[in-house]
């Protein structure tokens, strides 16, 4: 059986990984290479690297960074950020990208989806859709890093992308970005129902329960998160342990076992009781007397 994927979404700004809140505020986290090394060791299933400056500065995502990341990464890497030509895609793949995610270019030049799929195969082309509720309370696709409204309906746009040959859809809720309130389940489910390619939910994860919701109620094939994975040791292993307990089929690849841990209300592991910890100690011997 195909397993559900847990994906880390690393937002990179000026060469460092940042925590993104509502596409507006950014807090520094650390070096991309270090983040990737840790996530890889914790058994993440995939990594998305979004170089958010690239589009604004009209350049290709940092090739140096991609190739140094790929040296430490034995899971698939999707690269995003201002990609708008086949040549850019080729360059990135050469530097170690496994998949290419396009966002603004997919809205402004949809033909790039089919051109990319023809050269690199559908499985390589991912369309990332940023969605926000507009003033009428309806879901609308936004481009240019969430700044430009496009008037497109996310469900219809996702279907267009599928027809053009996109291999996967990332559906990102700008309103939920960095909110820790959970994924926008009705948005994710409506897109999942409308297309037959894999759908990745993004935006809002703040508790392992949110991943369960996205993969069951939201009908997504994968759930991605950025901020959620950064601030907790072994975050990926713990999330996957939580998913396994909730009958979601995920992959475990680390030697660390968390099967006997208990979770608290916030999704963190509970401290073990003093008696239990006492039992784990080696036998205490008072100072030896001769």
């Amino acid at each position: 059986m195909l397993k559900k994927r847990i994906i880390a979404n690393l937002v990179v700004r000026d060469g460092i990984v940042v925590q993104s809140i509502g596409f507006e505020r950014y807090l520094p986290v650390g070096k991309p290479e270090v983040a990737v090394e840790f996530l890889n060791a914790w058994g993440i299933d995939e990594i998305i690297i979004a170089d958010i400056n690239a589009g604004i500065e009209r350049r290709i995502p940092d090739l140096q960074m991609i190739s140094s990341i790929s040296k430490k990464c034995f899971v698939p890497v999707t690269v995003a950020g201002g990609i708008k030509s086949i040549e850019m895609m080729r360059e990135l793949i050469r530097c170690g990208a496994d998949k290419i995610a396009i966002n603004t270019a997919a809205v402004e030049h949809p033909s790039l989806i089919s051109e990319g799929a023809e050269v690199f195969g559908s499985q390589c082309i991912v369309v990332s859709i940023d969605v926000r509720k507009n003033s009428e309370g309806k879901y609308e696709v936004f481009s240019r890093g969430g700044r430009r409204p496009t008037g497109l309906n996310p469900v219809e746009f996702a279907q267009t992308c599928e027809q053009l040959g996109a291999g996967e859809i990332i559906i990102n809720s700008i309103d939920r970005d960095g909110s820790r309130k959970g994924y926008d389940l009705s948005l994710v489910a409506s897109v999942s129902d409308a297309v037959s390619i894999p759908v990745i939910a993004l935006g809002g994860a703040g508790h392992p329960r949110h991943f369960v919701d996205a993969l069951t109620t939201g009908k997504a094939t994968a759930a991605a998160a950025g901020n959620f994975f950064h601030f907790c040791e072994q975050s990926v292993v713990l999330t996957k342990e939580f998913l396994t307990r909730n009958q979601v089929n995920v992959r475990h690849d680390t030697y660390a076992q968390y099967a006997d841990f208990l979770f608290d209300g916030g999704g963190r592991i509970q401290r073990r009781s003093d008696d239990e910890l006492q039992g784990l100690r080696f036998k205490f011997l008072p100072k030896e007397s001769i």
Partner: protein
Amino acid sequence: MSSQIDVVVIDYGVGNILSITNALTTLGYDFVVSNKKEDITRAQALILPGVGAFNEAMQNLQQLNLIELLREEVLLKEKPLLGICLGMQVLAEESEENGIHRGLGLIPGRVIKLEGDDVVRIPHVGWNDVVAWKNSPLFLNMERSPHFYFDHSYHFICDRTIVAGTTLHGQEIVAAVQKGNIFGVQFHPEKSQNNGLRLYRNFFNYIKNYHPQHVKETNHS
């Protein structure tokens, strides 16, 4: 014979070469990335990577004059070859990806589109369990059904005798093939963390102990 293994990773413009070389470097193996005839004829074994579309891959192989060369090296000289993802699919006789296209024809088989439905999404993307069918050298020292990373929309159809492993995604999909010295895997071992690195190690161990049949015969006579 020196213990150094000269493996050529064939660079034909559509592969994810860097991912593969990173995996081989991590494991500490010697290899050369090349598409030159002299390197390929000198190599003890070949790795044929692949990400992309079938037709583009075959056109690139044609332009680099590698089609006949690969047939000769693999079929006549019996060099071990590992095809990865699209690199496995081009081993087939033909593919129906974007029209019918001829493949290298190293393994009897065809490549056809995966059929999806409401539950089964295509492309087949993600981690899936592989059941190793026979004692394939590639799956030694692994758990019973190791998981690997798949990412494809077309799949390999061939005779059951050359299937080395299968996986389930709506239907049974050929995950690995082996015909003598020719190996192919539909998944991406370089993207499959520990199991993937084990698979590469197994392939290198196989090369180390490998002697082509026709060399043996001439030795006996």
